[in-house]
Structures are given as structure tokens and as C-alpha cells.
């Protein structure tokens, strides 16, 4: 029952804050509402037993990506203090597209009563390392460094490339 209360509170927070992100006119307020959405999503992760991922979500999304957004908002408005006003164009078309998509997905989600469960188990040779992990973090780390080591290394290189690219693009012209 505790999960139900938490789920409904978090869902309400996420949906209201997301509506704030896409409808508010002050860009900074939109960014702060996005921060609320990210916190709500971290809460949903905790509800689903992904505690390490929730910590990572707050650390990276709220602590870094949101700060990038806030810096971008501050650097792209006149320093004299006029606030950026964002206006929505094509509202009926956007609403139609979003509601159409939502209708299709809700129909699929509600009509599909049983999805086949996963068949992988700890007895598989590639998952043997997981037999005695004490908690979710150990499971995450073990799997990341044994079965998914190649994507992990690739993600590191990708981050390096992105960092160098962002520095080069945003640098002041010589």
C-alpha cells in the first residue's frame, strides 16, 4: 500500500511538472520544473528497486544536465535582465500529434494483458558471476563490468568525444 501512495504522489508530481515544462512562458521556470520531473523520475526508480540508478539520475541529470540548461538560459539572454519569453506555436497541431500518440500507446498498453517474462536466469554462463551479489549496486556493477564491458568502454570514449566537442564549439572565437 505504501507503494501505491508513493506511486500516485510521484506520478502527479511528474505529470504536473512536465506540463509546466512545456507550457510556462518564463524559460527559467521551465528549467526548474524540469528539475522537479527529474526528481520524480528518480523516485520512480527507487520504487522499482533501482536505487543505484536513482542516485545516478540525481547526480547526473539534476546535478549536471540541469545546471547546463540553467547556464545556457543565463548565457543566452541579455545581461540587462530582460527575461526570455518562450511562446508556443502550432498549438493545435502539437496537441493533435501528442494526443494521437498517447491514444495509440494507451490502447496498446491496456489491451496487452500479459507480456512474456524473461527467460534468462542466473544459471546462464554469462550471468554466472551474479550468483552471490549482496544488493542492487553490486548486481549493477558486476553486470556492467562483465557482460556489458564493451558498451561501457564505448560510453567512456563517447563522453570524452562529447566533452571535447562541447568545449570546441562553445569556445570564444579567437
Amino acid at each position, binding site marked *: 500500500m505504501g507503494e501505491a501512495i508513493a506511486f500516485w504522489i510521484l506520478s502527479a508530481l511528474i505529470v504536473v511538472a512536465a506540463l509546466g515544462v512545456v507550457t510556462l512562458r518564463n524559460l527559467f521556470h521551465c528549467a526548474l520544473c524540469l528539475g522537479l520531473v527529474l526528481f520524480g523520475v528518480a523516485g520512480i526508480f527507487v520504487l522499482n528497486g533501482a536505487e543505484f540508478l536513482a542516485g*545516478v539520475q540525481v547526480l547526473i541529470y539534476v546535478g549536471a544536465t540541469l545546471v547546463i540548461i540553467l547556464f545556457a538560459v*543565463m548565457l543566452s539572454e541579455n545581461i540587462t535582465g530582460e527575461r526570455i519569453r518562450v511562446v508556443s506555436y502550432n498549438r493545435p497541431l502539437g496537441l493533435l500529434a501528442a494526443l494521437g500518440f498517447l491514444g495509440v500507446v494507451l490502447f496498446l498498453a491496456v489491451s496487452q494483458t500479459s507480456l512474456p517474462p524473461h527467460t534468462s536466469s542466473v544459471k546462464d554462463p554469462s550471468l554466472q558471476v551474479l550468483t552471490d551479489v549482496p544488493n542492487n549496486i553490486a548486481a549493477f556493477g558486476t553486470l556492467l563490468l562483465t557482460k556489458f564491458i564493451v558498451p561501457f568502454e564505448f560510453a567512456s570514449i563517447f563522453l570524452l568525444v562529447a566533452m571535447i566537442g562541447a568545449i570546441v564549439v562553445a569556445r570564444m572565437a579567437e
Partner: protein
Amino acid sequence: MTLMELCRSVAQWLGVPAEYRDAATLILLALADAFILFNFVMLSVLVLIYVFRKLIGFIQARLGPRYTGPRGILQTVADALKLLTKEDIIPLAADKVTFNLAPLIVFLPALLVYVVIPFGDPKSGLQVRDLNIGILYIAAITSITVIGIVTAGWASGNKWAVLGAMRSGAQLLSYEVPMTLAFLVPVLLAGSLRLSDIVNSQGEWFWQWNAFRLDYLGLTFIAFLVYFICALAETNQTPFDLPEAESELVAGYHVEYSGMKFAIFFLAEFGNTIAISAIATHLFLGGWKAPAPFLPDTGWWSLFWFFAKVSTLVFLIIWIRGTYPRVRIDQVMELGWKFLLPVGLLCVTGVGLLVAVRP
């Protein structure tokens, strides 16, 4: 009677129906814990401000507060009353909602980080929640402070505030990276992110604490120094207090804040100071353990040792504040990226290699 039993009896007394009694107990327990933590932070900041002003006075060859109460003990109370009765000015160009919200966003992490910090032996119930992701939770929560500071600067509608906020935000972000690397060293040694596991992995004698371990070639001591310097930068303490110095950019991001909101910023700063000292003692100085195995360190004695170590670190921070001059912003950036980051990487790599090759 433990806190849990007290909450259960209160739930019973309130007449909660039987199937909701467990949930009600948990909610009451959470409220009681929040109340205790909040009071602890407020009282400790009260004491800390007085100690701080006296110590800074003695370092600067003067006497500090003397007249309010015997030996100036009630000085903080007088300051708090003064700030409470000051007029609450909101500038015309400020954005009201975010202007009022920003001090709360800065204060919230300073309070939330105490949830995972054990004040003593967790088996004696001196920790609110021993989370599996203890250290990650601390790193995540302290990164919310940046958002509060940037919001405070932007919401003031003042050029100088925006510039000060961007400088402060850049400083905080730059020092998060070496701080996280320094966090990783005790985590590697303990094999777990839980704070109680990290403290339990340190030995009983004081030369077996993480900071002084010689079998890792002193790399853990370097990690302790890196963590300490980065934590000073994270909480805007001297020598990194450029963002809030009155002579730089007219006090930076909190130039437009007066009265109680200004007080909340300073509560957050002092709360953060105690929090980083507490985290440093758990990660590197053996937490609640006594310096020798024959000294008692269970139950209330663990509280005593914990506070002794935290007080030592806070004294060190105040001593540094009274001794060193301020560092310029470009020097701050250079120190963070060009010196502390490579040193942090070296520590993590070295300790990781030693952990891997040792049996």
C-alpha cells in the same frame, strides 16, 4: 524505549485502525527523525557560529564577542533576532517566485545530507537511514546546491548577482569531480557504498584509519587532502570564498537577499561545513571508532568520539579561514582542473591497482 516503539505507541494512542498501524508508525518515525535532525542542525549551527567568531577573534589577536551574555555566549541569538526583525526587501526586477525559492533550494541539501550520516554506532540507532547507496546519495544531494546558487543569482535581477552566481556555479561544478574521485578511494577499500561498511572496514588503532594507512603508500592520505580541499571549495569556505566575499562583486549571488533569507544562506553554509567534516571523519578518520581498541566505543561513547573528530576538523576549517587569503577565480579553476583532478585520478588508479593485486 526506542524511537520506533515510541512512535508505535503514539499511533496506537491516536486510534489508527490496525491495518494502517505499521504505515502510521513509519510516517511518525520519519517525522520524528526529521524533527531531531532539524533541531540538531539548528543548534549545532548556533554553537558553531559563536565558536567561529571567538576563534577568528583569537586568531586575529582580538577577543571576539564579549558583552551579550557571559563571555558573549548569546551573540548568535542576538544575531538571529536581528536578522528576523530586518525588513524583507524584494527588488523590483526580481522574479518573486524563484527569489523566494532559491534560499530553500540551497538549504535543503544541507539538511538532507544528514539522513545518511551516522552520529555514532548505527547498531545503537544513531543513524537515520543506512542507505545502500550512502556515498552516492551524499554526492548527489550536494550537487543540488549548485542549482540553488544559480537560481539565487538569476532571480535577483542584478548583473553582479548573475556574474557571481555563474562564478560560484563554475567553482562548485569544477570541484565536484576531484571530490567524487577522492570519495572513491575509501569505497574501493571497503567494497561498499554504505557508510557503516566504510567505517567498519577501518581498523581499531588510529594508524589503521583510512587517512593514515601506510600499506597503500600514503595514497589514501593524499586522497584525504584532496577531499578536504574540494570540500572547502564546495561549501564556499576560505580560501575559496570568492563568491560570497563582500569586496568581490558586491557579495556575489546573495547581494539582494536581506533578513531571514540571508540567514538561511548562512545556515546552509555552516550546516554544510559540519556535514563535510562528518563525512570526512567517516571516510578517512575512522568514524565513530576510538583511537585504540581498549578505549570504549559502543553506544554513547561512539557519539563522543564522532563529535571529537568532527570538532577537530571544524577547528581546522576555522583555523584555515583565519590564516589564508582568498584565491582568485582563475586560480581556483586552475587548481581544480589542472592539479586536483590528475592527483585524484592518480589516487584512484593507484589504490585500485593495489586493491586488485593484493590477495
